C-alpha cells in the first residue's frame, strides 16, 4: 500500500516533465492516451503504488497541476 | 573701511526691495564713489536685485550691482559673483542682499570671515509677519538661529516689514509691527526701523516718527495692481 497519493489537475499540465525527472520513486510519466485542453499529454501516476507522498513533484511543478496526500 | 550692511531673512520677507532702497539712500550720502549692492540671491532668480540693474544704471544712480554675469543672471545655478571676496577686502561701502533661509545661510557662511574682519557692519533680519514660516516666534527664532549659526555673525537689528503688498493698510501695518516688536523683544535684537511703502508714510509718521522708513518697490510688476 502506497504511503502517498498524488492528485492531478490535468488541464493545467504543460508536459514540461520536471515532476517526472525529479520524482525519486519514478512514479510519474506522460499519459500518452490523453490530450488535455492545452494540447499536451498530461502527467499521470504510472506507478502509484510507489508514491511516498514526498511532494517533490508538486514543489518543482510550475503550473499547480499536482496535489499530494500522505499518511 | 566703508560700512557693510547685510539684509537677511526668510524667502519673500522683502529683503531685496529693502536692500535696493537702502542702497539708494546710501548712494546719496556715501563718501564713496559708488555703493556696491551685492546680489547674492543664489536660490532662485525670480525677482532679484539684478533685475533692477539696468534701470538703476540708466538713472545714473551711484550704485553698482554686483551680481552674476549676464548670461548667468537668469540661470538657477549657485553663481556667487566671483568678485565678492575681493570687494569685501577693499575699502567700499557695501550692501549685501542674501538669499532666504538656508541658501542665504550657506553663502553667508562662506563670506562671513571677510565680513567679520571689517569693523563696521550691520546684519539685519527682515521680517514680514504675514509670511509663512515667519509668522510665529518659534519660526522666527528658528530662522534667526539658523542664519546666525551658519554665518557666525550676530544680527544687529530687525527690520519690520509687515505688509500684504497691494492690500496693505495702516491698521495692518500697526498690527504686524506689534508682532515683530514682540519677536524682537524675545530675540533681544533691537528693531532698526519699520519699512512701509511711501503711500502709508504720512499716515503712520505721527505714531512711529523717525523709526519709520519709506520704501519704493522696484521689482513688483505694475500689471499686478488692481486686478
Amino acid at each position, binding site marked *: 500500500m502506497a504511503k*502517498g497519493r498524488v492528485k492531478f489537475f490535468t488541464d*493545467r499540465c504543460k508536459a*514540461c516533465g520536471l515532476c517526472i525527472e525529479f520524482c525519486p520513486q519514478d512514479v510519474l510519466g506522460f499519459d500518452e492516451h490523453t490530450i488535455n485542453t492545452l494540447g499536451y499529454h498530461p502527467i499521470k501516476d504510472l506507478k502509484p503504488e510507489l508514491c511516498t507522498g514526498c511532494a*517533490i513533484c508538486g514543489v518543482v511543478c*510550475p*503550473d499547480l497541476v499536482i*496535489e*499530494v*496526500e*500522505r499518511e | 573701511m566703508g560700512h557693510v550692511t547685510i539684509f537677511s531673512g526668510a524667502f519673500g520677507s522683502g529683503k531685496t526691495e529693502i536692500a535696493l532702497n537702502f542702497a539708494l539712500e546710501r548712494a546719496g550720502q556715501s563718501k564713496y564713489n559708488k555703493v556696491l549692492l551685492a546680489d547674492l540671491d543664489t536660490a532662485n532668480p525670480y525677482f532679484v536685485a539684478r533685475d533692477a540693474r539696468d534701470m538703476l544704471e540708466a538713472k545714473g544712480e551711484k550704485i553698482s550691482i554686483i551680481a552674476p554675469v549676464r548670461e548667468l543672471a537668469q540661470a538657477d545655478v549657485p553663481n556667487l559673483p566671483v568678485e565678492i571676496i575681493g570687494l569685501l577686502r577693499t575699502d567700499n561701502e557695501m550692501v549685501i542682499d542674501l538669499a532666504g533661509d538656508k541658501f542665504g545661510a550657506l553663502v553667508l557662511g562662506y563670506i562671513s570671515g571677510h565680513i567679520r574682519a571689517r569693523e563696521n557692519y550691520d546684519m539685519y533680519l527682515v521680517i514680514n509677519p504675514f509670511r509663512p514660516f515667519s509668522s510665529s516666534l518659534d519660526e522666527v527664532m528658528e530662522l534667526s538661529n539658523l542664519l546666525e549659526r551658519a554665518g557666525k555673525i550676530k544680527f544687529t537689528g530687525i527690520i519690520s516689514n509687515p505688509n500684504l503688498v497691494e492690500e496693505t493698510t495702516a491698521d495692518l501695518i500697526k498690527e504686524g509691527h506689534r508682532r515683530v516688536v514682540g519677536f524682537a523683544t524675545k530675540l533681544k535684537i533691537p528693531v532698526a526701523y519699520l519699512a512701509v511703502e511711501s503711500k502709508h508714510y504720512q499716515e503712520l509718521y505721527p505714531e512711529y516718527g523717525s523709526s519709520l522708513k519709506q520704501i519704493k518697490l522696484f521689482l513688483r510688476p505694475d500689471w499686478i495692481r488692481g486686478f
Partner: protein
Amino acid sequence: MKKVFQKPESLTDAKNHYCPGCSHGIIHRLVAECMDEMNIREKTIGVCPVGCSVLAYDYFNCDMLEAAHGRAPAIATAIKRLLPDRFLFTYQGDGDLASIGMAEIVHASARGEKITVIFVNNTLYGMTGGQMAPTTLLGQVTTTSPYGRKAENEGYPMKMAELLSSNEGSAYICRTAVNNPANINRTKRAIKKALQVQEKGLGFSMVEVLSACPTNWGLSPLDGMKWIEDNMIPYYPLGEFKVKEEQ
C-alpha cells in the same frame, strides 16, 4: 491521508500563461505559500512589472498593480509610505529591474524602503523574444547578441544582489535558484525571511532568483534547469549577501 501539498490560497485558480518549464510559476507559488504561512494575504499589495510576469495580477490573489516598465519600486515605495502596516512586494525581471528600472531599484534600496523585491533573473528579455539583458552571460547568444555577448562590446553581466547589498538601506539580500527541489525550498525560505525583514521594518529586502527560460534558451525544461546549474550559478553565486539583524 492528509493533504501535504496543494495550491496556496494566495494564488487564484487562473491558469498561468507561462511556457512549459518556465520558472515563474514556481516562484509565484513560493511567494504565495509564504503569504499563506504568514497569514498576510489580505494585507499584501503586489506590483508586477513589464516582462513575462506582466499578467501576474491575474495569478496573485491579493491587491495588485501593474507598473510601467521598471517603475515597480517607485510605486511600491509610495504605497508602503502611505500604508506602512501593509506588505509590499514587487515582482520584477532582469530587464525591468536591472536595465530600465535601475534607478528605481537602487534608490528604493538606498532609502531602505520596507518592501520586498522578487527579482527573477533568467539572463534575457523573455517577453519580447529573447533579447540581451544586463544579466546575459558572456558568450551567451541572444537575438540582440547573435554572436554571443562580448565584454568589449556589450560589457559585463550585472550582479544585482552584490550591487544592492552595498547599500546601507538594504536589510536582506539573497540569491537563490529554482533549478532543483533543494534550491526551490531554499528560495522559499529566503522569500519568507525577506518578508519577515519587511515585517520587522528593518529595511529593503530582495531575493534574486536564478530562473529558467527554456523557450528562449532553446532548451528542454530539464536542460534549462541544468543550464542554471552549469552556467548561471558559477557566475552568480548563491547565498545571502546582506543580513541586517534587529537592533
